[in-house]
């Protein structure tokens, strides 16, 4: 988790403190669908009987989200943006075995 992901500032507020937004470049987004492997499914299924945190799934979603944000940032870079504001996250389970993680925000130019 870098705050300046490849030189682009990512925040989930509408404005950036101490900076002026000069131009909005539209919505940028990145998504990733991650399937859990079967071995993990079995061990986590066993862990689920006891309840509590499923550590492997937490890690998996963390990695996937990193990837989604990376793609969003790449999208913003290709538009020549310097920051992404108002970032939102959405998650949906496609089937029992796969989750889609989606990150989107507005690419802006700042000064």
């Amino acid at each position, binding site marked *: *988790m*870098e*705050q*300046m992901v490849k030189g682009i*500032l*990512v*925040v*989930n*507020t*509408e*404005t*950036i*403190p*101490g900076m002026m937004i000069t131009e909005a470049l539209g919505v940028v987004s990145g998504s990733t669908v991650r399937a859990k492997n079967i071995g993990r*499914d079995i061990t*986590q*299924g*066993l862990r*689920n*009987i*006891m*309840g*509590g*945190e*499923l550590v492997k*799934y*937490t890690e998996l*979603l*963390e990695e996937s*989200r990193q990837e989604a*944000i990376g793609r969003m940032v790449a999208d913003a870079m290709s538009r020549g943006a310097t920051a992404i504001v108002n*970032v*939102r*996250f*959405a*998650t*949906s*389970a*496609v*089937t*029992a075995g796969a*989750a889609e993680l989606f990150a989107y925000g507005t690419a802006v130019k700042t000064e």
Partner: protein
Amino acid sequence: MAEGGTLLALGIFLIALPFLLLALIGILWSVAYPLMLIWAVLFSGKKLDRQIADTVQREGQTLATRGRDPLTTIDGGYRTDITSCGIVWAGVVYGPSHWFLLRGWVHNLIGGSIDIFQKVISAGRAEAMQRLREQAVTHGFDDVINVRIDTSDMAPQGAQRAIKAVEIFAYGTGVKYG
């Protein structure tokens, strides 16, 4: 003729082997699952209490060192001396044990609020928020503004043999004051 017989037996055995293994796994599962359920009945309540106690203790530490809760849902914040900012996030996948699911199911028949699920989900949410605080500290931020908390089901509705868990995901903008 005896050689042909052994070959035939070997062939049948090789074809049947995967099915035998499957049956073996099935038998093992049907023995192991009740045992694990009993284990869950005995200890999952204690595990949840321990988890909650741990989260509360870490929360207390953060509050003690920072003097107040660094998380706010205010967009933009109320201070003007912000020098740097950036997104921080933390997620946790949290599920009730099968014993709680059983209790919830019984509660569902009677109706009313199902306190046990409320307890599990709040424990997960408290843990996610505490991790967000810790992330902010790791990245050198003073506060986290515009915090949003998302809860999503790990398995889609109607999936029968899926893992029963929710993902609680907290994110916000970390800010550092000058």
